């Protein structure tokens, strides 16, 4: 029997408890993706009037925007670094606007960091949240060595800029190696998926 999935409010409450600029490993299930989005973006970031920098390597930023709309979440403060649309659709059809920056491919991890850095610098909000959706999608395109290097540089950079980092791990797609890599750079863990303890 699997335990209940965490609700959006529970996820947000756990995040709200954490110190500023924490790096958080958020372990989720494919079944509570929507709760995770609502919890992190709406009930946490929006509530604290922080900009969200949403790095997606899983589904296109367009699709996430539709999800936000369907969930009636205000996306005024949400900015996307989209690592997947370019290779899926090509540069001309993938939408790039004030709110969306495209990275040519999920293998261009330096560019991913550069785009995050750009949005962090441009952001006027006091706190910021960077969401990595997800480490497993990035792991499809990159080896663990380079990913772990990325996480170290990214997380320490964000910490020094007073930004939260929330790294999503999808338990159905994860391996112990990947979990270890994430746990190594994170200060806190939230178990929102089926494997939740207690």
């Amino acid at each position, binding site marked *: 029997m699997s335990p209940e999935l965490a609700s959006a409010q529970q996820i947000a409450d756990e995040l709200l408890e954490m110190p500023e600029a924490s790096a958080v490993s958020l372990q989720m299930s494919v079944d509570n993706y929507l709760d995770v989005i609502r919890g992190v973006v709406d009930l946490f970031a929006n509530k604290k009037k922080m900009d969200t920098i949403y790095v997606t390597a899983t589904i296109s930023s367009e699709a996430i925007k539709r999800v936000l709309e369907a969930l009636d979440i205000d996306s005024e403060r949400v900015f996307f670094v989209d690592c997947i649309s370019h290779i899926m659709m090509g540069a001309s059809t993938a939408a790039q606007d004030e709110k969306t920056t495209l990275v*040519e491919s999920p293998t261009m*991890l330096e*560019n991913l960091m*550069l785009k995050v850095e*750009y949005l962090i610098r*441009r952001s006027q909000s006091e706190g910021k949240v960077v969401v990595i959706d997800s480490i497993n999608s990035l792991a499809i395109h990159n080896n663990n*060595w*380079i990913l772990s*290097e990325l996480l170290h*540089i990214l997380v320490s950079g964000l910490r020094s800029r007073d930004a939260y980092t929330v790294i999503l791990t999808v338990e159905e797609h994860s391996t112990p190696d990947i979990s270890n890599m994430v746990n190594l750079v994170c200060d806190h863990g939230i178990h929102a998926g089926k494997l939740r303890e207690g």
Partner: protein
Amino acid sequence: MPLKPGDRERCATGVEGLDTILYGGIPRTNTVLLTGSCGTGKTSLALEFLIHGAIRGENSLFISVTENSEKLLANIIPYRFFDRTLVRSGRLVFVDMPIMYERLGLTKPDLSMEEIDLLVSALASLAKELGSKRLVIDSITSVCYKLKTSEKIRDFILKLSKALSDLGCTSILVGEVPADSTSYSSFGVEEAIADGIVLMANMERRGDLLRTLQVIKMRGTMHSRAKYVLDLTPMGVLLVPLLKGGSTQ
């Protein structure tokens, strides 16, 4: 923070990533060769160095050799921190080298030793008159084409950097090299004379093209020798370390 003995005062480039690489900035009065193949971002970086200087109240001078400065200004990245009043107030001055050549009567394709001295002293008096603390020549390679021999090039760069350094001016000389070059400069002498070399390049990795920056040498300071990946953005040049994990490059 007081300077330790041997610690030279820094001229912060204002490019945060580069200042970190250089432990605070270019040692003041150094002459730095900023070199790379075409389209790697040399002009953008050099210009940003001057804009940040001007914002901090240091008079800055851009000597444009290859491009007309009007056109250059029209094409620059729309930097969020660039304000045209810096130009209007004279903090940031653009001078076209061809106009200087003409005024000095240096219109021949080949300059003599005397003419080189004339050019150096004209550039130095311009910098002195304007009180320039930062100077860029874009590109030095184009000037070198008028000098022909390595002896003359050496003479020119040595005298110029001495004169600028005496004025307390920190300078960037932009160099152009072919993409496949193994040398840091077109004539091979610029790199030996310069106090510092910053190399910008394009790098291919598994089919992805990355823009990179690397500090090869910088007299008067410790510095990272690692390769960084850069992005030219309206917030200026951004740098992150090149990831090495498992790559074959």
